[in-house]
């Protein structure tokens, strides 16, 4: 159980940062959402046409899955930022706080809008008539009679919105905004269930606390009890204040931002990069679990400073190249293209490839006589293939389909750490895999060869943002990593994070790798 205790204390060490951002994000989104939807609802209560439009719009927003809504704001803001930069010379960060804020603010609108309209509609017509009769103007009627009478219903709407927003804010992690979701997403990827539970628990406690306090405020309004309202207000101030306090502590110079994609190898390498940068005196923050396209655009826009990408990904996704000139030529042309078109500096390879590969259980492959993708094509219609969320929409997969003419009977998608279990247990026959994955040797899987060269090379490369490209200290801190990690070392490192027993955190593994890199450098220096 000492491992679990370690995981709990590791989780606790992040609490100030994660909770602080979670509260800051939710609170800002609520303030914006309410200050838009409250006046809008008042207008809606008066104008029939606007009511149908506004409620319809808010209803549609609600039907968009929350994660998709958050993700949609990234390209939107990126475009907007490019536009303002071109027109006014001022851009803004399209990743992180802003897209999360915008999506959550929109998300909070429906309950407030709906309840405010219902509350205003519910005011007794006799009372409204009397208000006109005693000579109230429209605004006096609104502020002296209608809003006070609708207040309990409006507050109930705000309460619903707050619960939704605090819950949904956990999904802002994938767009690069730190939140309690960092526990959940990191935990899910690294199978650190203590982290997942901790994240869910923290979000639930925060939600319940805010819900109860708002319920108290609501009861205070219904019973016209100033004491209850004051207690609820004080409670909310205390909760928010306590949560936000840690954020004010470290508001120093801009830290170096290390990005990672959403799998273990990336977390390990992210931690390794952080170790190197910290040793060189940089303060660092992480933007974890970003999607392939998001992370590349974010680097080009300077929203993250460094991350590890794979040559074939840039070749196919960003350069849109379909030709296969070979490993060295891809690396050279890519480096040149990144510098010319984006100002991104490619420092070079880390020393291993993490290529797309297709793997089968060794016994099953032997039974069918499958050794290569060409062999696979003959059996594919009768077989089931499992892939991660990306593979089937990627150009690499289309290349394999075209070059070998494979067409599977069934395609299934899994989260990457369930993928290997699916093939090991026989749920699927073939899986897409990554060549550095420690589970390939662990589950005794056979990687099918690619005789026609349909798949591009995937050298792990260090990419540095245009802004940091000329920062000599920054570059010098990362240079020792180049060529330092071979395939076997990366596979072993990944396995340490993936295995069921004796599992280690990405930070621990990164520390080992860092020590190894340092030792290697020392040896070289001596030679």
């Amino acid at each position, binding site marked *: 159980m000492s491992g679990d205790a370690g995981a709990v204390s590791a989780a606790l060490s992040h609490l100030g940062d994660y909770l602080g951002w979670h509260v800051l994000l939710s609170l800002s989104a609520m303030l914006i959402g309410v200050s838009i939807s409250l006046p809008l609802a008042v207008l809606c209560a008066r104008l029939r046409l606007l009511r149908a439009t506004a409620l319809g719009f808010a209803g549609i927003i609600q039907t968009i899955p929350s994660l998709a809504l958050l993700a949609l704001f990234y390209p939107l803001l990126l475009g907007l930022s490019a536009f303002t930069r071109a027109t006014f010379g001022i851009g803004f960060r399209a990743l992180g706080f802003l897209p999360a804020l915008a999506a959550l603010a929109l998300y909070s609108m429906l309950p407030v809008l709906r309840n405010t309209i219902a509350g205003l509609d519910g005011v*007794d017509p006799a009372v409204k008539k009397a*208000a006109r009769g*005693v*000579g109230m*103007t429209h605004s006096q009627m609104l502020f002296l*009679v209608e809003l006070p009478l609708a207040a309990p219903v409006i507050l109930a709407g705000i309460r619903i919105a707050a619960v939704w927003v605090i819950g949904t804010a956990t999904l802002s992690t994938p767009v690069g905004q730190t939140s309690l979701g960092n526990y959940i997403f990191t935990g899910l990827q690294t199978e650190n269930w203590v982290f997942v539970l901790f994240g869910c628990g923290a979000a639930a406690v925060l939600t319940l606390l805010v819900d109860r306090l708002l319920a108290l405020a609501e009861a205070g309004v219904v019973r016209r009890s100033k004491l209850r309202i004051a207690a609820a207000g004080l409670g909310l101030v205390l909760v928010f204040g306590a949560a936000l306090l840690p954020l004010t502590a470290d508001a120093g110079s801009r830290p170096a931002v290390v990005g990672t994609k959403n799998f273990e190898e990336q977390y390990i390498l992210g931690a390794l990069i952080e170790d190197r940068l910290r040793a060189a005196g940089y303060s660092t923050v992480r933007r974890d679990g970003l999607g392939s396209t998001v992370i590349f655009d974010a680097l080009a826009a300077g929203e993250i400073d460094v991350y590890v990408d794979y040559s074939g990904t840039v070749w196919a996704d960003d350069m849109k190249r379909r030709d296969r000139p070979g490993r060295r030529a891809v690396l050279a042309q890519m480096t040149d293209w990144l510098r010319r078109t984006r100002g991104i500096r490619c420092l070079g390879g880390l020393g291993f490839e993490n290529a797309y590969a297709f793997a089968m259980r060794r016994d099953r492959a032997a039974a069918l006589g499958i050794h290569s993708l060409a062999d696979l094509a003959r059996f594919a219609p009768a077989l089931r293939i499992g892939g991660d969320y990306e593979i089937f929409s990627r150009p690499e997969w289309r290349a394999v389909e075209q070059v070998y003419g494979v067409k599977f009977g069934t395609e299934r998608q899994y989260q990457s750490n369930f993928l290997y279990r699916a093939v090991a247990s026989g749920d699927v026959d073939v899986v897409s895999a990554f060549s550095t994955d420690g589970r390939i040797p662990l589950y005794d899987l056979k990687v099918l060869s690619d005789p026609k060269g349909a798949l591009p090379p995937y050298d792990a490369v260090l990419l540095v943002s245009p802004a940091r490209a000329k920062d000599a200290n920054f570059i010098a801190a990362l240079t020792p990593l180049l060529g330092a990690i071979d395939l076997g070392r990366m596979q072993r490192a990944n396995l340490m994070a993936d295995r069921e027993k004796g599992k280690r955190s990405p930070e621990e593994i990164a520390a080992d790798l860092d020590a190894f890199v340092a030792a290697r450098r020392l040896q070289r220096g001596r030679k």
Partner: protein
Amino acid sequence: MIELRGLSKHYGPVAAVDGVSLRIETGEFLVLAGQSGSGKTTTLSLINRLIEPSSGAILIDCADTRETDPVALRRQIGFVFQDIGLFPHMTVAENAGIALKLAGRARREIDARVDELLALVRLPPERFRNALPAALSGGQRQRVGVARALAASPRLMLMDEPFGALDPLTRDELAADYRRIHERLGLTTVLVTHDMTEAMLLGDRIALMREGRLVQAGTPRELISSPADEFVRAMMDSPTKRARALADLQAGRA
């Protein structure tokens, strides 16, 4: 003095009020009577511009009401509603003093005036000042309604079936109390009712309406002695018929 000149209100093809002309003298207690749907409440609401007329004019002391801002007009005229319409989130004192608050009077002045008003409608201020409407009986609520209407010292009071929803004892008591207030303050009152007994006992004059038109206006005695048509006769007769039937019942002749 209030003068209605050829007053009409149309809702599409339907005329709710149809060419009503009527003079109401200062200090007079006029009852607008008639059956449901005869247009009496609409006529009342036209006077303080809660409803705008389709045609015709209303003059109060020779000034056309269309030349006064409707909000300002309503603040000069007291209005008492059948469904009372007290503001449920305000205390009795806040309800009674609302017109003064809207007029921007000082807090102390409002408090003093509210106590005076509550005493006038026979609600002991120290007991009722801080009560919420929900804690009052129907009669007490309408007393607050009357106090609210009187707060800004209006010369004209409009009352829309003010005692209609009350039990008989409370109704008689409140009607008698209001009539006394009318005398004491020298008010001009226009009261709408469909209850002919109430109309005959309260009103200096009765204006009888049918299907949006004014049929006849006069003192109760005039309407009884020389009714304009069968409708007026039937309306004026009904309380007498009922009184006779009741007398028979009491005498054991039924």
